[in-house]
């Protein structure tokens, strides 16, 4: 078990290293240039532009820039932002932004699981009932409707027409309601469908019929057999969706004007703030690697058939 974890972590390190090289190359290969964005329409001369390039170390070959970045990283230095917060340390920028993003995602995850598990099970048991139809239609819409559209419509309805909730920002806790709801919508829809399918499948299995024949009550049947078996796909999907958390958050943070990591990421990409992009991507890569590992470990707990050697 320990050996397995160590090997997986080592593989993860290699993956993270490769991701950092690819990101670095892509950012530098992309057309456009931070200096030209930085000076905008200011009256500058070529000398000034060269001066800035030199100051920012952009006049060096790309591999050199990469090695310098890697060297700093190994010493625990994520570098400095050039553009989105000139002179500020990247570590601080991330430290400021990350808690909000984590909070939003955990809240969304919590509510979607809390909602989707019971809803999926009920829909699975009461097949072709009204509840079942509603859950199917609802979860189809939830997956199909784009996040930004739902977000805008929810702002128009709850912020502008009804006036119940703030249209943007986090002036009070009510500011969390819409972003978390929209963020959770997608998860809830996917998980409800999964849970419904899994429940139906398990209920059709012969061992369930056997268990019923033995006289096992509905509640015991659900908790011992149905939920336990249905959890497996749920865990898979949650683990796999960790990789997409940031992309979902970018939209939500942009529409609702929330100062999280998604905004840091999109701003730094658009403004070619290389060091910041590198750090965020690195962080994301780590989260994905750890998320995958954790998923695999949870499998062994949920599914006794899976054994790690």
């Amino acid at each position, binding site marked *: 078990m320990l050996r397995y974890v160590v090997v997986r972590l080592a593989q993860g390190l290699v993956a993270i290293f490769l991701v950092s090289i690819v990101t670095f190359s892509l950012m530098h290969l*992309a*057309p*456009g*240039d931070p200096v*030209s*964005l930085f*000076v*905008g*329409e*200011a*009256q*500058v*001369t*070529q*000398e*000034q*532009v060269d*001066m*800035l390039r030199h*100051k920012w170390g952009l006049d060096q070959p790309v591999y050199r820039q990469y090695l310098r970045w890697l060297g700093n990283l190994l010493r625990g230095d994520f570098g400095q932002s050039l*553009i*989105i*917060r*000139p*002179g*500020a340390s990247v570590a601080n920028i991330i430290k*400021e*932004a990350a808690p909000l993003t984590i909070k939003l995602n955990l809240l969304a995850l919590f509510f979607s699981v809390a909602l989707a598990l019971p809803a999926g099970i009920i829909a699975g048991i009461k097949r072709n009932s009204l509840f079942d139809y509603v859950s199917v239609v609802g979860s189809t819409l939830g997956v199909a409707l*784009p996040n*930004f*559209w739902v977000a*805008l*419509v929810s*702002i*128009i309805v709850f*912020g*502008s*027409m009804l*006036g119940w909730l*703030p*249209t*943007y*920002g*986090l*002036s*009070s806790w009510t500011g969390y309601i819409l972003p978390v709801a929209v963020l959770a919508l997608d998860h809830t829809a996917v998980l409800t469908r999964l849970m419904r399918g899994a429940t139906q499948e398990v209920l059709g299995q012969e061992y369930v019929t056997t268990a019923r024949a033995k006289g096992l009550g509905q509640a015991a049947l659900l908790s011992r057999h149905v939920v336990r078996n249905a959890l497996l796909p749920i865990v898979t999907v949650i683990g796999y969706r960790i990789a997409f958390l940031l992309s979902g958050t*970018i*939209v939500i943070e*942009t*529409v*609702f*004007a929330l*100062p999280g990591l998604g*905004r*840091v990421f*999109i*701003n730094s990409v*658009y*403004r*070619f703030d290389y060091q910041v992009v590198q750090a965020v991507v690195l962080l994301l890569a780590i989260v994905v690697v750890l998320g995958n590992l954790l998923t695999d470990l949870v499998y062994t707990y949920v599914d006794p058939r899976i054994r790690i050697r």
Partner: protein
Amino acid sequence: MDAHEPFHLHPLGGRKTTRRTFVVRAALALTGAASLPLLAACGGGSSEENPATEPAGDQTGGSTQASPGTGSSGSGAQGEPVRGGTLITLGHTDVPGLSPEDAGPTVEWSLVTQIHNGLLEIDENYELESVLAERHEVAEDGLTYTFTLRQGVKFHDGEEFNADDVVYSYEWYRNPENASIEQQSFAGVESVEATDPYTVVVRMSEPNAAFLIRGATAFIIPEHYHSQVGQDQYRTAPIGTGAFKLKEWRAAEYTLLEAFDDHFRGRPYLDEYRLNVVPEPSVRAIALETGEAHSSVWQLAVEDNQRLEATGEFTVFKAPSVSVNHFPLNHNLPQLAEKEVRQAMMYAIDRQAVIDDVFNGEAVIATSNIAPVLESWYNPNVKEYPYDPDEARRILDEAGWTVGSDGIREKNGVKLSFTCGVITGDQARRPEAELVQQYLREVGIDMQVREVPDASGGMRQGDLDAAVFNWTYGGSGGEPDPSDTLRSDGFNNFSHYRSERMDELIDQGLREVDPEKRREIYNEIQALVAEDVPFLYMMYWQWYTLYSKQVKGLPESALSPTQTYRKAYQFWLDPNA
């Protein structure tokens, strides 16, 4: 937002989104149109290339009369000013810092200008206003400027402002090592000297007529503080002489300024001045409607501007910008090198139709490089290009460009064909380019449209044949000099335009300090641009600045709507409005 802000809590007059606008919005959103503003907002990094925006650095972007029929609320006309409250403005992206170096983009400028002052400042009508200087004198030869400073001015930390701060600031901007965005504003400056605590003398090695508008308007930073903490720290904790001082700064969320009690023009009526970051343009419009903000510094979508204006609940300043919407053309290509070809293109395009079809009529036709709102510099008597496709064909025939079998003209084996770059995700200018493409095709010119991430950079490096974006070709801050864009060696000479006569005129214009004689030179520059057509000058976009009716003490009118934020030291909030 903090809870202790009385003014954003109650909606202004109960305006709600009507059902109709909601349906329209929802429909737009469903067809995917709403996704575009979002993407555009995300792309706000390159501000001069953001579709619905004024170029970075061009804070003085607007111009002409406050729109007829939407009269601005005159200060004092509606009751006595009341002290208190927080003015809430909206920006679209992070505020990276608050030093004068960060004041290029409009949103950052709107904050930096509350914190700092210049010796002179440009007001909302492009007039020079003496602020930290009481008066100034310019020697006849244009080589010496003498500024007499205002006395008894305090910085936010209580220290007195004097001539040493001016010398320090100007020297800092001039020093190439600081790579300041203001460095060029001090071109030609030989020395800056404090002859006594309240007199500063600037000597030039050669005349630079643009110095007053560019250099003397640079913000003053305190020597005793800036020299101690350094630029990196200063931009996070600036200290100026302005009416508001920094209270709290959270780059990605908001910037909060508070009234400076010892401000030399008196304490402002507002207790606080706040900027909230709201990236999505339609959300900014909704926030104005619900009363959660008083004004959006960053532009809204054209249709939102028109809709909000129609509600009658806002004071609207509206004027065409000084930056021109244009197609730079790479003159190094043989098919674009002849001025006859470029003139023919001007005749071939129905610009008014483009304005009406693509921009809801919210723009005015350009006649040359200087915007008509710069009344003292604008030359209306230049060659004009009314829509006349027959004339275009005639010129092209005469110049030897004959129509080939595929309908595209050619000459000496060169096809009259080129590619125009539009900025990726630019939902405003892509349709513009496509319309122009059709007009050009009618006269046998083939223009392909291709999306590119960095149009201005691509033109600068000569990678692109043509592009479409907005830029100022002289006129920024009311100063007509276009050396950056029209001189042969100009850094932003996107068209790679080379004209000895133009270079001469530009140099003369900067050497001449007599306003009358200067005007003649810039008249000729405009005539030469209209003759040579270095780029296809299309139009000036209408620039809107809206304030909730609660905001009083606004200027009567503004040629440059965004510059009205500079007057926040006179604003007050009417609790009864």
